[in-house]
């Protein structure tokens, strides 16, 4: 390249090239970890999807199996956290944000079904894992404000909550199919409470807003299930 002029110091672009190449190397390094996480997330959701066709009485086994796959997810997240913590978080987080969300979605559903801190007795469903609890489980910081490190963001948590609501809506119907008329009531209340929470947020016109707009339809779906049950006098008598 016979550059005819001294106008551009070639060092400028060599330096920029080096910087950009460095970023590419970082991305390549993270790619494998993120792919493994994605794969193990799928395992978790595969196992947990059995909850839709398993009566509560037999759920113990599902939760146990889920815990095994969850542990591999936790390992992956630790690896990711280690590799990514030295990087500017928001420069690269779009690489793993989706995978982190599905990891959290799995955990939230597992927690709701009663898997978290399960001590072997009766399974107690209906728990909402807080963002702090998720941080403990995944062994990562959450919702950082100043420190530039790997963490779980509030937005990711909120996105995952929406996914949880969607999953529970499905579960409400499927519980009825399994002859479980109590679960829809529990879900109904839970989903409403979460929806009430989302309603006090001032969301801007972003993806969180768009997805949370759909929450009211999920709430309605669950209400319809409860309505169908009550119409047929199938609701368990409170007492």
């Amino acid at each position: 390249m016979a550059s005819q002029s001294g106008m551009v110091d070639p060092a400028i672009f060599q330096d920029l090239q080096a910087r950009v190449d460095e970023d590419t190397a970082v991305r390549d390094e993270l790619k494998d970890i993120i792919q493994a996480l994605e794969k193990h997330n799928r395992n978790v959701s595969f196992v947990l999807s059995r909850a839709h066709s398993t009566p509560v009485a037999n759920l113990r086994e599902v939760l146990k199996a889920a815990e095994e796959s969850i542990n591999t997810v936790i390992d992956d997240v630790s690896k990711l956290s280690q590799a990514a913590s030295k990087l500017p978080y928001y420069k690269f987080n779009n690489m793993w944000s989706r995978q982190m969300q599905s990891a959290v979605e799995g955990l939230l559903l597992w927690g709701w079904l009663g898997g978290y801190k399960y001590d072997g007795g009766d399974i107690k469903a209906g728990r909402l894992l807080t963002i702090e609890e998720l941080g403990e489980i995944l062994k990562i910081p959450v919702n950082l404000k100043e420190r530039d490190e790997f963490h779980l963001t509030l937005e990711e948590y909120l996105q995952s909550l929406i996914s949880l609501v969607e999953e529970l809506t499905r579960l409400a119907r499927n519980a009825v199919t399994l002859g479980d008329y109590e679960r829809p009531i529990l879900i109904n209340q839970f989903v409403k409470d979460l929806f009430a929470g989302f309603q006090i947020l001032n969301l801007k016109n972003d993806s969180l807003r768009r997805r949370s707009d759909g929450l009211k339809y999920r709430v309605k779906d669950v209400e319809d299930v409860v309505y169908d049950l009550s119409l047929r006098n199938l609701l368990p008598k409170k007492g």
Partner: protein
Amino acid sequence: MPDETTECKPEQPTGPFIAMFEGFRKELDEHHDRRERIIKASRDITASSKKIVRNVGQPVPPFVNKSNAQYWETIQKQYSGIASDLQSLNAHRYAHNITGGNQEFIEALSFHHYLETQSLISYDEAKARIAMMSKDEAKDGDLQQEGSVVPLSPEDYILGICDMTGELMRFSVTSMATNGRLPAGRAKATPTSKSPAATEDADRMDIDSQALTSGDSQKPRTVLDDLRSIRLQLEMFEAPYGPKWVSELETKKMPVMRECVDKVEKALYGLTVRGSERPKGWMPDMSSDRRAEVESY
């Protein structure tokens, strides 16, 4: 639609998660406020940068510094106003909110720098300039903590330089139309020298300076030479696969940049072929789609 879950007053939502969500609301509000401050600053920086470019591009160099002072000031105010919002974790969080302003400012800065020094401002110089502008709002630097400056990413710089070629094009064409020549630096003994001395004696890009002297190895560098060398560097630059800014670069900025160089080449062709017949107020014909090899006449 039975979605009135808060059957009572919407003012007083109740439920087990409300307290938690109130915390979330506060954080999201802070986030949105910060983002909006940055977007607004970015817009103001963009507007002022455009004005600087417009003024600087006029063939009235002596006055440009004065009339642009207010715009530089505005930009400085905006940069220093948002510097604290763009620190640490937040530096990259809002990078795409400030990139527009940064790019536009780089365009203005590099164009201005080029007219004064006939060289391309480096990434580090540009970064240092923005750092400086985001700092000294008031003289008392104690108010702001160390290193509280608006960051400039390599991406912003490259995209800004792409835009700057458009200004060089406009500058060249205007000059050809009014003076009948391509702006060139003063003749130098070694125009290809990479030493800083090469730019020292040509500190001012002057339209009235000597025009091309044909067939001479000592001919001065012209804007077209410089445009070509920027183009060469940008074409040689290997953009990584994936990030968003790369598609912007490849689908939008690069084609426009090539177009700009083409336009100047075509205009110079027109000038070369029909130069002597040029009536007053003649504009170079840029609609010609023939490729002109201007250097080989």
